[in-house]
């Protein structure tokens, strides 16, 4: 189908983009890679009056080493995240999850920040961002501010972004030397996750010293499996211990029911996939 008519502006700086958003008012939308927004526009599920294209703002693209963290620019493509050596070294979980996003075409067009700001609970990058305790750097008329991932995701497709704000980057604390795995469960390769689990672990002398586990599509927002994390710490990195800890994965969740999975099945999957994700992350 054909989108409804809209105005289009492509600012070249963040300040201009923020100004354009504020000027356009409530019905403005930010577009970056367009991999989520364009289908929505074509099906006329949304009809924004203005699109602010942030794809031509050079400062938003690329990955910067900030010492104890990586700052990933919002319009860095999935392909660039996949190929970046510093991501592989310091945020392996993010690379693992990005590898499972859609298909090569989408990964070349779609952006990291776009996927995060779209806040689709079935999106694959939200749980890793949450699990790695990332900070989201937002910029609005009043300047920049930083929001913790745990506070950023508010509801289905809803974030802490204000109308005049854009997501400019995601600061991911380095998890150097951590094992990581993203265990995705979907019916066909290109489909959204029914459930997926993002796991990162640090093993010291055969014992799990730290663990981070995030769940995809187990709620309206990505969730941390805190009970699993605490059950893991201090445990030997064995299949048995991991399975016991993973049994806590669905605690406190009330996932939605749809044609692919009812609530009980999703909770069951969360347990099974958590066990598999941690097992793979620890290399057991």
């Amino acid at each position, binding site marked *: *189908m*054909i989108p*409804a*008519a809209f105005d289009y502006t492509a600012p070249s700086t963040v300040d201009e983009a923020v100004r354009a958003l504020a000027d356009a008012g409530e019905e403005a939308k930010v577009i970056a890679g367009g991999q*989520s927004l364009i*289908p*929505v526009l*074509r*099906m*006329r*599920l*949304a009809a*924004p009056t203005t699109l602010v294209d942030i794809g031509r703002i050079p400062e938003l693209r690329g990955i910067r080493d900030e010492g104890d963290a990586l700052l990933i620019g919002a319009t860095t493509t999935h392909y660039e995240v996949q190929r970046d050596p510093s991501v592989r070294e310091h945020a392996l979980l993010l690379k693992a999850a990005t590898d499972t996003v859609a*298909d090569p075409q989408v990964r070349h067009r779609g952006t990291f920040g776009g996927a995060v700001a779209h806040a*689709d*609970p*079935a*999106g694959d990058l939200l749980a890793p961002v949450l699990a790695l305790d990332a900070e989201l750097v937002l910029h609005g008329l009043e300047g920049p501010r930083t929001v913790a991932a745990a506070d950023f995701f508010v*509801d*289905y*497709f*809803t974030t802490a972004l204000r109308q005049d704000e854009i997501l400019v980057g995601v600061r991911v604390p380095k998890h150097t030397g951590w094992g990581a795995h993203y265990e995705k*469960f979907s*019916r*066909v*390769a*290109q*489909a*959204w*996750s*029914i459930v997926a689990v993002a796991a990162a672990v640090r093993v010291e002398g055969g014992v799990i010293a730290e663990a981070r586990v995030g769940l*995809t*599509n187990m709620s*309206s927002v990505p969730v941390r499996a805190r009970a699993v994390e605490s059950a893991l710490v201090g445990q030997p990195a064995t299949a048995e211990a991991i399975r016991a800890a993973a049994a806590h994965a669905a605690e406190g969740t009330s996932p*939605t*029911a*749809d*044609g*692919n*999975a*009812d609530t009980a*099945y999703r909770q*069951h*999957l969360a347990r*099974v*996939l958590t066990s598999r994700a941690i097992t793979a992350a620890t290399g057991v």
Partner: protein
Amino acid sequence: MTATAEPEVGKARLRKEDARLVTGRTRWTDNLTVPGLLHLAFLRSPVAHARITSIDVEAARRKPGVVAVFTGADIADAQGSLPCAWPVTADQKAPQAPSLAVDQVNFAGEAVAVVVARGKAQAHDALEAIDVDYDELPVVLDLTAAVADDSPLVHPDLGTNSSAHWVFDSAEAGTGGDVEQAIAEAEVLVERTYRQQRLIPAFMEPRSVLVDPTGEQTTVWSATQIPHILRLMLALTTGTPEHKLRVIAPDVGGGFGGKLQVTPEEVVALVVATRLGKPVKWTESRSESLLSAHHGRDQVQKLTLAARRDGTVTGLKVELLADMGAYLRLVSPGVPILGAFMFNAIYKFPAYRFACTNVFTTKTPTDAYRGAGRPEATYAIERLMDELAAELGRDPIELREQNWIKHDEFPFTTVCGLEYDTGNYEAATARAKEMFGYDELRAEQRERRERGDSVQLGIGTSTFTEMCGLAPSRVLGSLSYGAGGWEHAAIRMLPSGKVEVVTGSSAHGQGHETAWSQIVADQLGVPFEDVEVLHGDTQSSPRGLDTYGSRSLTVGAMAVLKAGEKVIRKARRIAAHMMECAEDDLEFAAGKFTVKGTERATALTDVALAVFAAHDLPDGVEPSLDSEATFDPENFSFPHGTHLCAVDVDTETGFVKIRKYVCVDDVGVVVNPIIVEGQVHGGLAQGLAQALYEEAVHDESGTLTTGTLADYLIPSAVDLPHFDTDRTETPATSNQLGVKGVGEAGTIASTPAVVNAVVDAVRHFGVNDIQMPCTPMRVWTAINGGPTDAGGLGSEAGGGLGSIDTSGGAA
């Protein structure tokens, strides 16, 4: 000229049409344009069943670029009723089927108004300004409930939701025994109810139609499988004189039966273009296609198989409910009936009864989809044979062999009265077992089962046959089909030695241009490259019955062959005149007429040039070699094959992974092995997709919830296994070429092979069925003692595209 030394038939030629089809450097309907072209956009009902109390189009008429807006009432006099060419019973009930709904809508997605605008975007924008009031009626969604006495009616004026009840009974037909007696005397009964889920053909190129009324003849370009049938039906439906219509199917990007249709949009485009005197075009979006183009399958199959303890089958009773959707489209009622003769499959059932009730529901109409009736039948019988084997503790292949027709029993008249000309089920099965490593995989399965492996191996078998080559006209007549089953062809010998082949078959991806060229190159002894195949235009190819039902090679190419024989016959007389000998003294081979026992020869192409000059022809001989032929087959053809599937079922998640897939098909003589391989691969992908992935789902209000390709799951290459394919070759004796057809084989055979494998993997958990598609949740639920049809609708928002509502938030 040089004759080809090596026969073309059988050669693995790359397809001559592929360069333009794969790169898209060709003419599809949507990339055609004509001066002054206007664009159409259709407003579709968002509700499944309602009376239209008012439609206000005034605001839409005033929108920028809008030329006209029509409702059903506006064109009621011109649009007629969409045709159904297959009234399966004399008392079949059929509703009026307007292209634009007039006073009632009967499925969500039915067109209620059309906007004509200068730009496509303007047409779509104006749709939003149309205001329709609907007075909702109760929906009719479930097949079984629809035929209950207390069901609301889709079409109250018909007094019932049952369109027709069609029966074949071998005792009544005199082709076999009485199935009720067989059931009464059975030592073993297998009784099952299977569900054929609703599928969407999902061809690659969306439907598109362009109508140009400029000039004496109105030209209709359409992305259709059936330009010839479309021309006749458009004439009959709208009252446009047939000779004033020209229909062109330019290159068409797939159909799978989904473009075997006379669509509402084609009729409306013709009516509107005629009324305005201006050319119009419509091209659907993908979501419009999934919603409103006809769907396929959708049956409930109640099955009873009777057998003796020793495994001999003694009777089969089939009771079907077949969902027609809201209307009868072109061949909707006949689709389940095409399966009537296939439930007995390759087995020697002595008694058989088939009864089918065609049912109306408030859903998108169903019609032909790859295999059309035969996949449903094959699924049922091949699932039942595995169930009987399990019941008797027998190996499923050995049990099949006990019951199938042996290779030395052909020709064999089945319990349905069909004569299978040839087949060799033993050979195909032996080869498949060998390639599969059947015994080794069974041993591994035992070992993993004993070990309690969390991933269980399952092995599924499908030994299928199908009836192809639709069809002998007299048989179609006996089934009340509205047309014949012949095909037409013509051959034109050009003076420069090149050859034009005109075919009534209408390729939409099959590779006819290559295959027909190979056949004609051999027959006339001309180079493959010198043959041009013309099709899909009622002006250049005036007669034809088009492409569906694996009929093109068995019927269409046979017509080409017959036309070629006439060319040679005409040329022989002239060649004899040129060489001053008797016709009987000439033999024709490799493109040359040679005087027997001499070196004297004249090439066919030289004869063609002499005919063009026409300076010296025998008395009374017309100066043309051009010939045409119409071929009506005497029988169907019966491809068969053995498909074996091994799956790994993850019992912790229910996920099914196909580990190995072997198929050995017997499609008779092969004209081009690459084309055959491609058809098999594509067919397998579609058949596997029915088993594991695809399902059109409606919610309780009758809304299609799988309305995008994000929700209607079509597998991609990474989801599919490597296919190990091979062939046995038992030539058909029902046609001169010995060919059987291959368009539907993979689709028909593979679905039960996969589901048999899935059930086999988890049978030890007490599972004997899992409804299609075998989703992870269904498999996991069945393993854990739950129902076989777990799933259904969620009521809450989830993730993904389908969850986004019109406000841009979550539904």
